[in-house]
């Protein structure tokens, strides 16, 4: 039996096997030898809007605390709520205020963000009332002519289910998602801007900081004012612009140890330049 086994593994195949075995073992070794390096670990999951900001804040925190590792994962605000609640993460990232049903979690505001209505830059419409926006999104107004623009069909761009921009938009205009008749459903902010800038009849809503930045670098979009208030980062900071949201870190139960320290850090002045770099407004 042993002899036949040896024959089976001819010399060349044996070499190959040995090689792959060595490889597997060395990978295994590197895995186990490195476990002990890690000190404290924090996991953040949730909103893709907050994630790049939280990642930058985490990096700066790690620089000051070399023994701490902070892992940031994305997936949307609903996921942030859920993971923090069931303990899959230490901190959830949520890009809206908490609802009544979520009061078991504690919110910590780290930045503010406004939501702006954007249209293509060739659009001649300069402002829309709340009722007009509602009519456009519910499909009662189908052509820009009906609100004083050119004879162009309106393409309604809506956000995907589970995005907090959508929830804030629906809440602000007292709409249900089932009432909205969208032609395009998008996920992230940049995707919204790309969709609207590529379609002269489109209307959408995205983060103001992002829209302002893209507008200034020449992307074919423009921001419409809301209730007569200019949609701008300045307007969000002063509180004059009505359609804005807090960006929250949420935690469950008592804060302690590294979690408490990290949250204190991200609410301090030490990170205000990072907030600005991500086109948000420091609270």
């Amino acid at each position, binding site marked *: 039996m042993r002899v036949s086994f040896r*024959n089976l593994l*001819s010399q*060349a195949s044996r070499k190959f096997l040995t090689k792959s075995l060595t*490889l597997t073992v060395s990978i295994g070794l590197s895995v186990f030898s*490195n*476990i002990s390096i890690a000190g404290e670990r924090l996991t953040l999951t949730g909103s893709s809007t907050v994630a*790049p900001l939280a*990642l930058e804040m985490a990096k700066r925190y790690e620089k000051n605390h070399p023994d701490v590792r902070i892992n940031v994962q994305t997936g949307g605000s609903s996921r942030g709520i859920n993971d923090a609640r069931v303990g899959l993460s230490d901190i959830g990232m949520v890009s809206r205020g908490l609802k009544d049903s979520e009061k078991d979690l504690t919110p910590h505001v780290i930045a503010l963000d406004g939501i702006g209505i954007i249209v293509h830059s060739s659009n001649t419409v300069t402002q829309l009332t709340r009722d007009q926006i509602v009519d456009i999104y519910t499909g009662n107004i189908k052509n820009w002519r009906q609100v004083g623009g050119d004879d162009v069909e309106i393409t309604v761009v809506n956000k995907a289910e589970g995005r907090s921009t959508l929830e804030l938009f629906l809440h602000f205009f007292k709409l249900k998602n089932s009432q909205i008749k969208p032609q395009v459903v998008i996920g992230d902010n940049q995707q919204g801007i790309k969709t609207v800038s590529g379609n002269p009849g489109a209307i959408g809503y995205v983060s103001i900081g992002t829209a302002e930045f893209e507008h200034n670098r020449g992307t074919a979009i423009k921001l419409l004012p809301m209730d007569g208030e200019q949609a701008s980062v300045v307007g969000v900071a002063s509180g004059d612009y009505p359609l804005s949201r807090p960006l929250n870190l949420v935690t469950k139960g008592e804060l302690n140890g590294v979690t408490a320290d990290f949250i204190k850090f991200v609410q301090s002045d030490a990170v205000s330049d990072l907030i600005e*770099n*991500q086109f948000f407004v420091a609270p």
Partner: protein
Amino acid sequence: MSDRIFSFSIYCISLIVVAAFVWIISDVVLKGYSLVSWDFIVSEPEDAGRGGGIAPILVSTLWVLLIALVIALPLGIATAIWLAEFSRSNTGAVHIGTALDVLAGVPSIVYGLFGNAFFCIYLGLGYSILSGGLTLACMILPVFIRTCESGIRAVNSDWRLGGIALGMRRSVVVWKILLPAAKPAIIAGLVLSIGRATAETAALIFTSGYVDRMPESMFDSARVLAVHIYDLTMNVTGGDQAAYGSALILIVLIIVLNALAQSLLDSWFRRSEYS
């Protein structure tokens, strides 16, 4: 006359396909070229990826890929050999074949959700290079097995019979005759797998994760190139430039890896044929 129209339209169609390919590549090269430098490759990302480089992301990509291939290659070739040579096409094997075909067509996000639920949560591996590599292995296995299997089946039966007539063991026939003869198919399967795995976003964003730090162990969460490009284009304001740079690196990486894989397999087969 109709012959001419036929060949003319064939030329036109292939021209359109080549043009689309050239357009995509040149778009990425033209917009990404200015950013790519040695510094870009060896430095850490800054400012949410808009500045700095992609060193940790490149390393993570290679680790995830290595794990996926180390697991998928032996498993895949062994399964292919069993399906083609030893299963005698019994009902079990037919069902496995059908299952593989269905799995090969499953969208990668489904593998991502499975990997997240099974490797990250159930097995407790968390967001890690290991979870990502294992998920990728599951994802590339069906295509790899099927390609190798059809390669082995396609080997002329005379060669099998000849080997057996010479008194060779079945296992020796497989190692010395069938596998070397099926080499082109195995290489094709490998190239397909590497391409699919390296360019994967959906299966990895929820398994290996989003963290862009240099990985310290297999249990660290790590961002791969495709996830980095996705985040820069879809989520980070002003990240387009860096995304083009990273995309260019990704294309070059896939070409290099494919060449490497081919030459490795080539040299292995050469030794197994003549030793």
